[in-house]
């Protein structure tokens, strides 16, 4: 009862196309038997099979062509895109999941709520990372297969990318500095006013401050203040990091994109909150313009939707433009030449 050889041969041929299995099986088994004496010991069989190598390797040699999910030509691009998409998807899940779960907690106790938010958000992040991975991999598999016949791998010299503009690859220091100052001053002022519930419309009657009404619904504002602070800190650290690095490296790009994406998501989530506006304020405005509260709310709603779309499109455009900037400057030949010159001096 010795079927080690048969099992080895089977393990090889089961990895081959069906129409080759019978013949390879017969030939391989015959060759293996030839390598052994008539009544081989298990030890001798073991040695011969080990000399033939892993069944997987042997099968791959029989098939001839190497199989890839994503071939080596595309692998670098695949990893790059995967990283970026994972960061963007992860950030989206973090912010949107975090806020959604924070606004509708099931738990009663404060610790229950914290754990619920952490757990559910982590689940959201893992879900969306898997989705990102699946989508990117699927697209690259298609691209790779499409190129297998050499259809797209032909290239025309006129389609080669332009050399990177030496002046552009550096991050504008002034722009980053201004952004940092604006974030630190106006950003923190805005958050402070929100926190103190002082974002309000002030009515002035005959030079006397008559009445102030908070613009936003205090309960929503209280939820969002810590999130706004987090986004502000992220943006500030992204700006500082940009100033330090001075160039669009992968880490700078990742942080910058994460900050901008989060900012867009938080803003959109904030303005689309159903009861964002203080009811008293809406009432007052409706009375002032002599319209019904409902029709006023409808109009405000349309304006908010338009704003949300504009913010999303803007964020998307920024992501694309930053990605182009970074991908374009992957080959810093000029920098290298400069370094060589410096060394020579």
């Amino acid at each position: 009862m010795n079927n080690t050889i048969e099992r080895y041969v089977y393990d090889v041929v089961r990895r081959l196309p069906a129409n080759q299995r019978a013949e390879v099986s017969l030939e391989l088994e015959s060759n293996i038997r030839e390598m052994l004496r008539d009544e081989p010991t298990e030890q001798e069989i073991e040695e011969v099979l080990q000399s033939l190598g892993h069944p997987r390797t042997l099968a791959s040699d029989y098939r001839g062509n190497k199989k890839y999910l994503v071939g080596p030509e595309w692998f670098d691009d695949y990893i790059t895109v995967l990283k970026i998409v994972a960061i963007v998807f992860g950030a989206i899940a973090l912010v949107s999941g975090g806020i959604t779960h924070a606004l509708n907690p099931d738990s009663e106790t404060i610790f229950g709520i914290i754990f619920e938010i952490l757990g559910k958000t982590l689940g959201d992040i893992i879900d969306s990372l898997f989705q990102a991975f699946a989508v990117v991999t699927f697209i690259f598999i298609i691209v790779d297969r499409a190129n297998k016949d050499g259809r797209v791998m032909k290239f025309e010299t006129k389609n080669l990318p332009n050399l990177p503009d030496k002046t552009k690859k550096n991050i504008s220091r002034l722009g980053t500095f201004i952004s940092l100052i604006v974030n630190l001053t106006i950003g923190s002022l805005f958050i402070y006013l929100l926190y103190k519930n002082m974002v309000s419309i002030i009515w002035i009657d005959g030079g006397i401050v008559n009445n102030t009404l908070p613009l936003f619904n205090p309960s929503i504002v209280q939820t969002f203040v810590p999130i706004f602070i987090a986004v502000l800190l992220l943006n500030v650290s992204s700006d500082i990091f940009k100033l330090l690095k001075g160039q669009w490296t992968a880490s700078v790009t990742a942080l910058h994109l994460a900050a901008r994406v989060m900012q867009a998501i938080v803003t959109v989530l904030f303005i689309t909150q159903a009861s964002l506006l203080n009811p008293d304020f809406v009432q007052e405005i409706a009375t002032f313009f002599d319209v019904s509260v409902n029709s006023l709310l409808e109009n405000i709603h349309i304006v908010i939707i338009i704003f949300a779309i504009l913010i999303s499109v803007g964020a998307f455009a920024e992501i694309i433009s930053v990605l182009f900037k970074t991908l374009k400057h992957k080959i810093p030949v000029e920098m290298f030449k400069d370094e060589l010159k410096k060394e020579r001096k």
Partner: protein
Amino acid sequence: MSSDIYTNYLVELKRGTQIIVVLSQLFDKEYGYSLLQKLIDKGVAIEAGTLYPLLRRLESQGILISEWDTTMNRPRKYYSLSEEGLKLYDYLLDEYFGMVKDVSKIVGGKNNE
């Protein structure tokens, strides 16, 4: 430098000549194991795991022809050069000798320093 790198380059260097070695021994028909033995005897051993798939691949490309011998208690698949294989062998052999000449010229013999 790690011995792996040495081994890898040696394997790569040998791989190119494998096909010539195999074709050169197939003017008369051979089955997998007999060819394997022949190559070992002549000092140009090729691993069994490499040789068997190689024979099959050459056959599928029309370089070798095969026939099954089922008269013995164990069936054997015999391979020999096809006409196309003969032409390929001549061509590769010419190229090979040309390369040996050119490479020898450029490296200029080995000095033991």
